[in-house]
């Protein structure tokens, strides 16, 4: 009898309880305090908003090859971080969290993700920042996303997990060149940074945003 009561209570947990559970889960994880994780989010949102890479014109613009701000910024961030992170890990200041090579999942997922990124003009990180600046169309996309998350959760065991296939392990590039790890890291980091610098800078502006700015601060008139 007691068991049944317990199960019922658990099943009818309110949304408020679940949100409190979210905070408690972070407190118990030892991946930073709740305040720090929130702050990481604030900085993340601030950088994305301040560089304007949440704009449809930036991501869909890149898909049309009319804007290259997103790849330039991404490659630069990766190039710099790869070198710094490698030596930070060697010094014991961080550790690797490498995702497994699940080949079918990566390829099928990557194709779906690329198609939807071109159409929506956002990704799951930049989408919320767009919603925070009032983009209703992206909010509709997020509702689609939550339903996608629901379908994935409901059919994970029966459909999606078999579709992803088996993991081939967690490889990294330096592991492929034993004895030359440091050189591999430096070549990778420097090459990716140079790619970021040498991708030609193209920009597609949104007149609707520029109109709200004084003439002398408009980036298209500089």
């Amino acid at each position, binding site marked *: 009898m007691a068991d049944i009561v317990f199960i019922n209570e658990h099943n009818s947990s309110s*949304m408020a309880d*679940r*949100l409190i559970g*979210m905070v408690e*889960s972070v407190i118990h994880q030892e991946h930073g305090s709740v305040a*720090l994780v929130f*702050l*990481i989010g604030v900085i*993340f949102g601030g*950088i*994305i*908003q*301040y*560089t*304007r890479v949440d704009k*449809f*014109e930036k991501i*869909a613009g*890149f*898909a*049309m090859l009319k804007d290259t701000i997103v790849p330039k910024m991404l490659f630069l961030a*990766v190039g710099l*971080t*790869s070198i*710094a992170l*490698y030596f*930070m890990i060697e010094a014991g*200041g961080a550790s690797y969290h490498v*995702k497994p090579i*699940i080949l079918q999942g*990566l390829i*099928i*997922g*990557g*194709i779906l*993700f*690329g*198609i939807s990124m071109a159409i*929506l003009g956002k*990704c*799951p*990180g930049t*989408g919320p920042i*767009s919603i925070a*600046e009032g983009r209703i*169309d992206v909010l*509709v*996309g997020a509702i*689609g996303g939550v339903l996608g*998350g629901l*379908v*994935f*959760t409901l059919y994970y065991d029966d459909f*999606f997990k078999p579709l*992803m296939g088996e993991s081939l392990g967690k490889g990294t*590039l330096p592991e492929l060149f034993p004895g030359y790890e440091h050189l591999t890291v430096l070549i990778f980091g420097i090459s990716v940074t140079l790619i970021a610098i040498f991708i030609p800078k193209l920009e*597609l502006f*949104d007149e*609707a945003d520029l109109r709200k700015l004084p003439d002398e*601060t408009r980036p298209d008139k500089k």
Partner: protein
Amino acid sequence: MSNRLPWWMGGILMSGLLLLTFSIFGADRPIGSSTYVPYFAGIIFDLNPENYSYLKHIEASGSWEGIMLLGALFGGFITSVFITKSFRFSLIPTAWKTYKNNSIASRLLWSFFAGFIMIIGARLAGGCTSGHFMSGMSQMAISAMIFGGVVMVTLVVTGRLFYNVKGKK
């Protein structure tokens, strides 16, 4: 104060944030931003994690990203109101009108569809632009390079086919 940061400043700042998040003095984990979506779906539709293996599997990273998302919404909102001054309600992007059509219904339907398959794609691959491209490539993970390559190619091919880019500047 300038209303936008140049790409190189954005790249340097994002790199700093990634290093802070990875560091044992920070969060000792990578940045990710797609696991929170099924996590919130579980909350909204009141699914019990005991009954759904995927919810149990993502409980820790989903809640972490959930808190980060709340911060990101707050940071994005404050920055859009006070710095970039881009806060406004809109239903259809300017470039959609230029390169696709003027129909709000078309934009909303495509957004819904794209959002739906985006999250399924990200969860199949086990990450998104943040988790795979930024955090994964920074660790030189092979998985991230496969994902990044497939996404880049598909993105540009879809951009060519989906939008009317010919004859327009």
